[in-house]
């Protein structure tokens, strides 16, 4: 039974004020939702509580007593367990070792007690056994797991602490529906046991499904705490965005049909790692959605079209010309763009200025040899404005931006020189609602200008609201095409869950 009170937490990174005044009152037996737009300071607040970030000011009270959290170890000792948004896994260690890494069971004081470890891990894994998917066991090295499975390991790692206070910083961003459901079941059970739980997500439906109370944080400052039952989506969004009234109702663009029927991208009999016999066409001005459960080949198909994965069979025709697409370079030269949801791995150039992050595609498409910063700056500013990116100067390093704004930079790099085909592979992962709205408005605009767009999203609502046509993937193949009035949530789920 733990009650956690955080008052006036503050953290600055150089000139960036990540957290201005973080307040949070967490009670035993509740799931307390923390919500706020990208870069509002949620993760920073969590990391302060978990001891991995040192606050500049503020106090933490545990059960009414002020405590010093000197580091992650101290936090654990105080009974605080955390799921990190960016995960904290050792890729080459096994699932079991990862789950118990902070507290490996020992015998004789120094030796790892393998038997106990495996057994304890099996018990934790058992909770997720049927939703974890293939190849998930206690002795699997984490590096061989899929993104959603890794997130499950991080969840198990947090659960294994059996801490009275548990923090989950966007634990569901890569999970599929069944996995989320299972996770929520467990959260409810823990809540029943009297644990105090912080839960962060950008998905409204999840928040209302699991939360008891919600604290909204805006620009590093706690603005309101209310009971979920006594608030609604509109109110929360209003609190999140402040004065930006027009965003209070999420704008849902009606499905617009392709303005021109000219095919810009055609993929036939396409097979490769994780997908088989996929075929489709994208017309100019069309937004084609990829749907289905997580990891059914949607991402692989996009990466293969983009040349980042090899394909074994099939053809890719872009603007009427066949391309082998052996590398991203070739795809980019052909007019293809790809935005990955995994920006840390595929997107950002860590530590480099925004300008350098924005220009690589521009260089390649214009075959430039010399870099003239003034010219580049001019080119780069326009797409940043279109995406409403928050930044101070093009010279600031990209890691000084929040996750969402980093993703906007990654998207903007493709928009300096318009591509013909835009492949969006879960592009809004970790982006806040306001930014999503901006982004989809822009995507629609780009389509209207004649671009062909392929969109995969792990959020069904996003697909349904934005795609003109949806191909539902199941086990690496397209099993259903939803058009026009068929694009309903029911149809989508039905196609996704039926046996391939």
């Amino acid at each position: 039974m733990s009650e956690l009170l955080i008052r006036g937490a503050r953290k600055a990174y150089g000139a960036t004020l990540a957290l201005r005044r973080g307040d949070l009152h967490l009670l035993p037996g509740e799931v307390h939702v923390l919500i706020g737009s990208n870069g509002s300071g949620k993760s920073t607040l969590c990391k302060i509580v978990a001891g991995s970030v040192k606050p500049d000011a503020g106090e933490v009270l545990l059960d009414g007593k002020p405590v010093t959290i000197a580091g992650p170890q101290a936090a654990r000792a105080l009974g605080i367990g955390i799921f990190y948004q960016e995960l904290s896994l050792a890729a080459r260690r096994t699932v079991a070792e990862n789950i118990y890494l902070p507290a490996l069971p020992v015998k004789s004081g120094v030796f790892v007690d393998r038997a106990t470890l495996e057994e304890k891990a099996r018990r934790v894994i058992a909770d997720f056994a049927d939703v974890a998917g293939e190849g998930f066991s206690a002795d699997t090295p984490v590096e061989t797991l899929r993104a959603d499975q890794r997130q499950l390991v991080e969840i198990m790692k947090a659960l294994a602490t059996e801490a009275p206070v548990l923090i989950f910083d966007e634990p569901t961003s890569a999970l599929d529906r069944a996995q989320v459901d299972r996770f929520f079941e467990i959260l409810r059970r823990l809540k029943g046991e009297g644990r105090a739980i912080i839960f962060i997500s950008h998905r409204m439906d999840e928040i209302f499904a699991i939360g008891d109370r919600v604290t909204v944080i805006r620009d590093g400052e706690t603005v309101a705490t209310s009971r979920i039952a006594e608030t609604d989506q509109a109110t929360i969004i209003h609190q999140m965005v402040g004065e930006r009234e027009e965003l209070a109702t999420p704008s849902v663009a009606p499905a617009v049909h392709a303005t021109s029927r000219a095919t810009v991208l055609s993929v036939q009999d396409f097979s490769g790692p994780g997908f088989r016999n996929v075929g489709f066409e994208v017309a100019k001005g069309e937004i084609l959605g990829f749907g289905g459960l997580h990891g059914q080949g949607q991402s692989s198909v996009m990466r293969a079209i983009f040349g980042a994965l090899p394909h074994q069979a099939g053809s890719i025709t872009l603007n009427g010309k066949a391309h082998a697409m052996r590398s991203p370079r070739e795809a980019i030269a052909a007019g293809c763009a790809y935005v990955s949801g995994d920006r840390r791995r595929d997107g950002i150039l860590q530590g480099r200025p925004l300008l350098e992050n924005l220009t690589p595609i521009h260089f390649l498409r214009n075959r430039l040899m010399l870099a003239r910063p003034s010219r580049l700056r001019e080119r780069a500013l326009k797409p940043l404005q279109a995406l409403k990116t928050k930044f101070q100067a093009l010279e600031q390093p990209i890691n000084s931006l929040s996750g969402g704004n980093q993703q906007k930079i990654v998207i903007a790099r493709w928009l300096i020189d318009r591509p013909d085909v835009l492949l969006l592979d879960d592009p809004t992962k970790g982006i806040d609602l306001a930014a999503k709205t901006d982004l989809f408005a822009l995507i629609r605009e780009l389509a209207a200008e004649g671009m062909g767009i392929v969109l995969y999203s792990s959020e069904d609502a996003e697909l349904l609201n934005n795609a003109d046509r949806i191909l539902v993937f199941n086990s690496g193949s397209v099993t259903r095409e939803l058009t026009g009035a068929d694009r309903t949530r029911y149809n989508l789920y039905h196609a996704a869950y039926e046996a391939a």
Partner: protein
Amino acid sequence: MQQIASSSSAAREGGLKSVLQRFPFVPALIILVALVALNGFFEPRSLSFGSITGLVSTYLALMLLAVAQTYVVYAGDIDLSVGAIVSLVNVVIIVLMEKWGGGGLTVLAACLVGVLTGIACGVVNGIMIAGLRLQAIVATFATSIFFTGLALYVLPVAGTPAPEAYWLTYGGTYFGIPFVFYVVAAVALVLGILARMRLSTQLLAVGDDAMAAFQSGLPVTLIRIKGYVLCGLFSALAALCVTGDTASGDPLVGGKMTLYSVAAVVLGGSALSGGAGTVTGSVIGALIIGLINSLVFFVGTPSEWQNLVQGLAILIALMAGVLVSRGARA
């Protein structure tokens, strides 16, 4: 049908892969066996018991030094001062044994001081790199200069002999078995114990992703310092072996061994980036280096070509080691 076939082939592949994952030194072992066979083919007497004993006693020091290097490599660090530590410990024990008279007990006491010296060097390295967050390659290069200076201070000129009691023991035979094999057995036992210790797993986890390990609540700084301490300890043990084989003090004796120790670790299938490897592999890697050197001679390479052929052979073995161990993980 199709699915069944493909999944069973995946299982077979997985079998080989999991063997390599559990025992990443298997490729190195194969190279080692091949080298032993080639040595035996070109010079049958090199496989005689005496020659093998000689090989082991000569390269025992490098094996231990490779082991020392492995523990820091586990955590993604590197130690370019191991050779200097060997030199320092060598001169320290030689000078002490001479000063204290060279009797049985004083020899042991000197060895103890030597081991403590090695540990102290490890602590210095650990504090510099893990504590004060200097970059391992350059910081240990700087400490290696410092340790070498210290060794020169302790013994300005190579030459002071070790007491006979010391090197006769090292080179001696007991119950029909040469002393070095007892050492090998003892080392194997210690390594087996260390491999089962929590520290090994923690070092590997830190090497895998230090930030993740820290956020998980591991005392990363302390773990890395412990890695350097283990490294210093095994470097000191290597120095004891060098002293046994050379029976004298030399403030420069270990200098060239540093880069060989790194090569041995890589040959043994450990990743320099940390997080993966075995000490067994490193021991095998050290033997591979020794056997390459003797093979180049036994096949009758002209003297002016020996360096080039050795260099090429080691380069190729290094590349093969990296390629195979990556194949195991890919």
